[in-house]
């Protein structure tokens, strides 16, 4: 795993790593990935992936609206707000959000 690869993944996860951090992560991740290569020794071509351990019928709820939070509660923990809306910095020129 190269440092560039770590930086690509870090950006996907919106993490910012210093050069040293990125290098350290790269080597740790590399050793972990090296370890998980163990799984390649298994032939799983005929095996279904498990995405849910318990066989359950799909739970569905009735289409009945229930009380929502008052707007003050919704934004009570907000680091920044504008009235009852959350406030965030705008996307800058050149950023690729959105």
């Amino acid at each position, binding site marked *: 795993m190269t440092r560039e690869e770590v930086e690509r993944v870090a950006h*996907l996860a*919106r993490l910012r790593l210093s050069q040293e951090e990125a290098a350290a992560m790269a080597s740790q991740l590399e050793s972990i990935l090296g370890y998980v290569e163990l799984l390649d020794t298994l032939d799983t071509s005929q095996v279904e992936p498990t*995405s*849910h351990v318990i066989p*359950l*019928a*799909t*739970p*569905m*709820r*009735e*289409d*009945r*609206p*229930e009380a*929502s*939070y008052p*707007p003050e509660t*919704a*934004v009570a923990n907000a680091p*920044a707000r*504008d*009235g*009852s*809306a*959350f*406030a*965030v*910095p*705008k*996307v800058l020129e050149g950023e*690729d*959000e*959105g």
Partner: protein
Amino acid sequence: MSSDAHPHYEAVIGLEVHVHLRTRAKLFCSCAVSYGDGPNHHTCPVCLALPGALPVLNGAAVEHAIRTGLATHCEVHSRSIFARKNYFYPDLPKGYQISQYEKPLATGGWIEIEVDGQEARRIGITRIHMEEDAGKSIHDGAATETHVDLNRTSVPLIEVVSEPEIRSPEEAGAYLRSLRAILRYIESSDADLEKGQFRCDANVSLRPQGSTEFGTRTEIKNVNSFRFVEDAIRAEIDRQAAILDDGGAISQATLGYDAEADRLFVMRLKENADDYRYFPDPDLIPLVVDEERIEEIRATLPELPDQKRLRFESEYGLSTQEARLLSASRALAEFFEAAARAHGTAKSVANWMLRDLLAALREREIEIEEAAIAPEALARLIEMVDRGRVTAKSARDLVAELTEQGGDPEALVRERGLEAVSDVGLLESVADAVIGANPDVARAYAQGDKKVVNFLMGQVMKKTQGKADPGRVREILARKLEE
């Protein structure tokens, strides 16, 4: 088929439409679906993505989605999987959208479209999948901030993806109109464009006539009317054709459309495909709906627009065009049939609706559901004309009035004193008076100029305030002039 302006290229257009399903509560929580309230008035731990919150699926949304799949001739799959689409945006509180990816709810359907001058043809639907809507980021106001409102988060959506089989802006418009009509017919969505309940993205590319390879495509987003979608697609085809004619290459991009300037602008260049890291959502069990249940749901579908149109042609002897117009909306079709039943002659009712009622609705910019006129009232009015109790002209004016105010045509005719003058004695004496007052005209008639009877008719109509039956008047005048 080729675009008229660029006959050497074939336009390849695919449409992705996001539709709000008609539920009372959200898709994964029980907050109400509501439009127009203040920011964050309809939120809870789940749609706020508070730590520890979990999604629970709304069964009514599943039903609406299945009905839509059935109404568009898709194969509805008994087993489909909710997947997480991971990306960061302020109006996406979980940092992922719950959608469907590898195993969507429905695939392989079609919609029939008709464009003037072409035969009807089918546009394929690749897939319909369920997903939750995101919130709204409001960029206006403060220059440095964006404000985020999560009322719309987790409103139930389906995404309807067409095959890239659309070949012109007109076909795109026809497809959107057909899809919208179907959704409103089966009541799985109100599809109100102004409320953002029906949002269309268009993928556009060109290729040389005869080629089967796909060219590079661009995506046009955020166009909020059918007309503008057609205009935007047209503008994009022109833009791409110009580049290709010049020997250039198309860059992948997401574009917006400025309707006022009729101009496209780049929202985002897409050098790299987004990596959404889809995986099955471990908080949700795979969606399983057995075949029996799907058939139960199929039985709740009303007659669909295409079926209704064919039946109107065969049952009422309407032309294809007439049938199409009268089945454009379910409410209009139901009005027509109720009026036809009350009156007895469907063709007659059809004529009156197509000529007068639709005009009255258009003038007032309303739909039939908002008109005050009852089908029985229209039937009654037509009957009164049939029996000569009111002239056709008076009746036509009344249609407009009934559309606006409602009421009983009998009463209105009486109130306004619009009863046709059919008293023969009265008509005879008026005719005598008119002929007497215009001896030279009568002489001209006697000398062979039969057309002058129209002038005399005009005079009689004036004297009777237009309430005389024209046919009767002509007959009386002719007889008297012959004498």
